C-alpha cells in the first residue's frame, strides 16, 4: 500500500501554520508543522518530507535560505513558498532553483492544491527513477 505523503509546513505565525495544517490534512495528507526553518532542519522529517510549504519572511533563516540549505545538503524536496511580500527576487529564485512556486498570503486554496499536486507528482517521478 502506498505510504501517505508527509507535507511539512514552516511558518513563524502559529495561526497561519495551524490553518495550513488543517487544510493539508483535509486534502488527505499527513502534515507536520514547524515554527522556524531551524526547527525543521533539525527534525527527522527532512529526509521523509514529500513537499515543503514555507513562509519566506521569518526570524532566523528565511524561506530562501532554508531552501538553499536543503539543496546544499543534497535534499531534493519540492518547495512551495508562501509570502506576504511578493517580490521579483523570490520569482527569480523560484525560476532558478526549480521550486514549485510561490503564493501570496492569503493564498487561493485552488492554487495551493495545484501546487501540492505538482510537488507530489514530481516527487513520485523521482522515487520511480531511484
Amino acid at each position, binding site marked *: 500500500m502506498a505510504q501517505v505523503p508527509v507535507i511539512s509546513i514552516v511558518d513563524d505565525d502559529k*495561526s497561519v501554520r*495551524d490553518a495550513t495544517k488543517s487544510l493539508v490534512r483535509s486534502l488527505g495528507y499527513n502534515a507536520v508543522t514547524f515554527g522556524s526553518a531551524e526547527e525543521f532542519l533539525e527534525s527527522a522529517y527532512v529526509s521523509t518530507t514529500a513537499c515543503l510549504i514555507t513562509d519566506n519572511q521569518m526570524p532566523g533563516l528565511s524561506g530562501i535560505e532554508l531552501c538553499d540549505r536543503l539543496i546544499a545538503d543534497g535534499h531534493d524536496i519540492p518547495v512551495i513558498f508562501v509570502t506576504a511580500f511578493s517580490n521579483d527576487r523570490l520569482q527569480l529564485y523560484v525560476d532558478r532553483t526549480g521550486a514549485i512556486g510561490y503564493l501570496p498570503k492569503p493564498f487561493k486554496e485552488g492554487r495551493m492544491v495545484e501546487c501540492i499536486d505538482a510537488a507530489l507528482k514530481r516527487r513520485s517521478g523521482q522515487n520511480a527513477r531511484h
Partner: protein
Amino acid sequence: MHDASEQQQLLMASLPPSPGQTRFALSIVAVLVAAFGVTAFFAKVQLARVDAFIPAAQTAIFINDVITSVLLFSQFSIVRRPALLALASGYCFAALMVVPHALTFPGLITPTGFLGAGPQTTAWLYILWHLGLPLASIAYVLLSGTESPKFMSERTTQAAIGLSVNMVVVLACVLVWTTTVQETRLPIILDGSGRLTLFGTLANGLIIFLAAFALVAIWVRRRSVLDLWLMVAIVAFLIEMLLSAELAGTRFSLGYYAGRIFSLIVAVIVLTAMLAQTTTLYADLAQSILRRRSTREARLIAMDTMAAAIAHEVNQPMAAMVTNANAALRWLARTSPDLGEVRTSLERIVNDGHRANDVIGSIRSMFKKDVRGRLLLNANELVREALTMVDLDLRNHEVLVTTDLRNGLPQLRADRGQLQQVFLNLIMNSIEAMSSVTGRGRVLRIRTDLMQDLSGILVAIEDSGAGIEGKDKDLIFNPFFTTKSAGTGIGLTICRSIVESHGGDLRASVNKPHGAIFEFTLPNGEL
C-alpha cells in the same frame, strides 16, 4: 522659494556677533590704536618719494572696495534692507574716487597730474573720496531701522541696485569734472609749500567729525557682525585721517605713508570679515542641510516601516482566516463530514478575527488615546517647520512654494509629531504628484485660515500636479489604495485618522486649472 526670514538669519548683515568675534574685533582695534600711537610720534619725519607706492596702494584699495561693494549689493539683494544699499553705494563711491585720485596725483603720470588736473585737484578728490565712508555709514545707521518693504520683488531689488550704481557713477563723474576743469574756482586746500590751509584743515575736521559721529551711531544701534566690523573699519579710517591729514603735515612724510597703509586697512577689514563669515556660514549651512536631510528621511522611513508592519500584522490573521475557512469547507465536503475539524477551524476563524481587530485597535489607539502628548501649537509654525524639512525635495523637484498664512490664528491642541506627519505626508504627496509635470509651473501653495464659523482653523495644501481622477476621489483615503508606482497607500489613511483623532476633518478636492487640494480643519485648541 519661500520667505527669506531664515536666510536673513544667516547673513552677516543680520547675524549678531558672538562674544569671541567681539573680543577679536576689540583686539584688532587695540593693535590699530597702538600702531597709531607709535607712528604719531614720527609722523612728521620726511621720507623719500616713492612713486610706485601711490598706484600700488590705490590699486589695492580700489579692488578691495569694489569687491566689498559687490558683496554688500548681493547681501542687499537677499535681505532687501535699504541700509545695505547705502553702505554698498558708499564703498562703490570710494572705489570710483580712488581712480581719479591716483591719476591726478602730481608727478605720477604728468608733472601736474593727469586729466587736466590743477594743483588742488588731488587734495580735493582726497577730501571727497573720504567723505564717502562716513556719509554712507551714517546713512546705513539711519536706514537700519527701516525694514525692507514687503512689496520689494526681485526685480525692484535689481532696479534699486542698478539705480544706485548709476547715481554713484554720475556723482563721481561730476565731482571729477568739478575738481579738474573747475579746479581754479574751488577754495585752496594745500598752500604753496604743500601744507593744509585753514579751509583744508576744516574740511578734514568735518570728515573726522562725521566719521566719529558714524562710529558712535553704529555703536549705539549695533546689532550685527557687519556693524561690528564696520566700527573697526571706521576706527582705522579715523586713524588714517588723523595721520595723513592732521599730523603728517606734508606728502611723503612717515605719517603720510602710514596714513595710506591705514587707508588700505580700512578697505580690507569689512571685506575680510565678510569673506570669513561667508566661509563659516557655508560650512554651517552644509552641516545643517545634511542634518535636515537625515531627519526627514528618518521620519519618512519610519512611516514606511510602520505602514509595512501594519500591513503584515493585519495580513497574517487574514491569511489564517481564509485558509481555515477553506479547510472547514474541505472537511464538510468529505463523504463523511468531520464536524470536529470543522468546529476547530471555525473557532480558529473567530480567534483570528479578534486578533485582526486587536491589531487595528492598537493602531487606532496610537493616534487616539494618547491625549497627554498634546500641546498648544501654532499651525503656521508647523507649516514653516515642515517646509524646512522638505526644503531639499522642493529644490530638487523645482517646486515653487507660496504660502498664505493668516496671522492671529487660534492655537491648536495637538500632538506635534503626529501633525508633522500629516504635513510632511501631504506635502510629499503634492511634490510627487507634480514630479511628472512639465510645461507648466510646479506650484505648491499652503494656506491657513480661520474656519467660517470661527470654531477652528483650516489648512489647505494645493498643488499643480496631475490631480485626482473622479473615480479615485472616493478611494484615495482607503487604506492601501495608491496611484503611485512606489507607495504603500497607507499615508493618506493615516493622515485622515490623525486629523480625525484631533477632532478635525481631511478632504480632497480638485484644484483649478490643475492639481489637487488637500484641506483639513482642526478645532480651536484654546477653547
